C-alpha cells in the first residue's frame, strides 16, 4: 500500500521500499497472532498503523478529531475480534483495519452522529484538534467541501483510490466488493463532481 512508508520501521533501507513494505506486512501478521494474548503486540500494531488510518479517515470525514474517534473505535473492535480469534488471516491485517475504519466512517457519514458531533465540536475543534499546519487544515476543508454530497461509499472509494493511491484490487478488498463495483463507483463519483463543477 502506498502509505507503508510511514508505517515501516525507520531502520528500513530507502533503496527498496517494496521489500520494506512487504517485511512490515509480514511483521504485522505476526503481531496479529501475538495480539490475541499480548496487549504489547496490539500496541505495536496501533503504533505502526495509526498515522495512515487517521489520515485516511480524516480525508473521508473532513475532520481530524472525528477521524480519531472513528479509528479509536475501529481499534477497539479489532482488538475484540483478535482476542476472540475472529481475524482469520484471509485478508492482510492492514487491509482488514482499513475495512473496519471505512465502515465506521461510512456509519458516521450516514447517521446523525456526524451532525451531533459537528455541533459539539464546532466550538472546540480549533483548540482540541492536533492543530495541523494551516495549509493541511485548509486542504482538509477543501476536500470535505469537494466531496460533500457524494454517497458515503463513493466518497470512501474515491479517497482510497484517487487520494490514497490504492489499487482497485486493494480498494475492493477493503470495501468487500468486486473491482467492477469499485470502478463503477469511481465513474459515478467523478461524473457527479464534474456535473457540479459545470453548474458552479
Amino acid at each position, binding site marked *: 500500500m502506498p502509505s507503508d512508508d510511514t508505517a515501516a520501521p525507520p531502520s528500513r533501507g530507502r533503496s527498496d521500499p517494496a521489500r520494506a513494505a512487504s517485511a512490515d506486512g509480514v511483521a504485522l501478521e505476526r503481531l496479529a497472532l501475538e495480539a490475541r494474548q499480548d*496487549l504489547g503486540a*496490539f*500496541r505495536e500494531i*496501533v*503504533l505502526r498503523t*495509526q*498515522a495512515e488510518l*487517521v*489520515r485516511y479517515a*480524516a*480525508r473521508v470525514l473532513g475532520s*481530524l478529531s472525528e477521524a*480519531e474517534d472513528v*479509528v*479509536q473505535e475501529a*481499534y*477497539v473492535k479489532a*482488538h*475484540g475480534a483478535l*482476542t476472540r480469534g475472529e481475524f482469520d488471516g484471509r485478508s492482510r491485517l492492514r487491509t482488514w483495519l482499513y475495512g473496519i475504519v471505512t465502515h465506521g466512517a461510512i456509519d458516521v457519514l450516514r447517521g446523525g452522529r456526524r451532525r451531533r458531533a459537528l455541533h459539539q465540536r464546532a466550538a472546540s475543534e480549533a483548540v482540541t*484538534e*492536533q492543530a*495541523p*499546519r494551516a*495549509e*493541511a487544515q*485548509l*486542504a*482538509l476543508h*477543501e*476536500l470535505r467541501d*469537494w466531496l460533500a454530497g457524494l454517497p458515503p461509499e463513493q466518497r470512501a472509494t474515491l479517497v482510497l483510490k*484517487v*487520494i*490514497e*493511491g490504492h489499487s482497485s484490487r486493494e480498494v475492493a478488498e477493503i470495501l468487500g466488493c468486486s473491482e467492477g463495483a469499485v470502478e463503477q463507483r469511481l465513474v459515478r463519483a*467523478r461524473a457527479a*463532481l*464534474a456535473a457540479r463543477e459545470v453548474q458552479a
Partner: protein
Amino acid sequence: MSRESFDQRAARLARATAELAPGPAFTAAVLLAVRGIEPGVWTVLPQLGRRAALGFGLLALVAVGCAAASAGSVERALAGNFNQVELEW
C-alpha cells in the same frame, strides 16, 4: 490561467493532507479504550492454571490462619489482663 483538472486537484489535496496525524495522546487513548473491554479477573483467573490456583488457595489459607491466630492471642491477652485486674482487686 488554465483550470485545474480533477487529477491535479486530487493530487494537490493528497499532498497537502499528507502530514495529517493523530495527536500525541492518541495511542494512550486507544489502549485505555481497549483495556476497558478486556476480560475481567474472573475470566482471567481460570486461565492461570492449576498450580497458580493452588498457590492462591494456600495463600488464602495461611492468611485466614494468621488472622485466626492473632484474634485468639488478643482474646487470651484480654483474658489475662482481666485475671490480673481481678487478682489485684
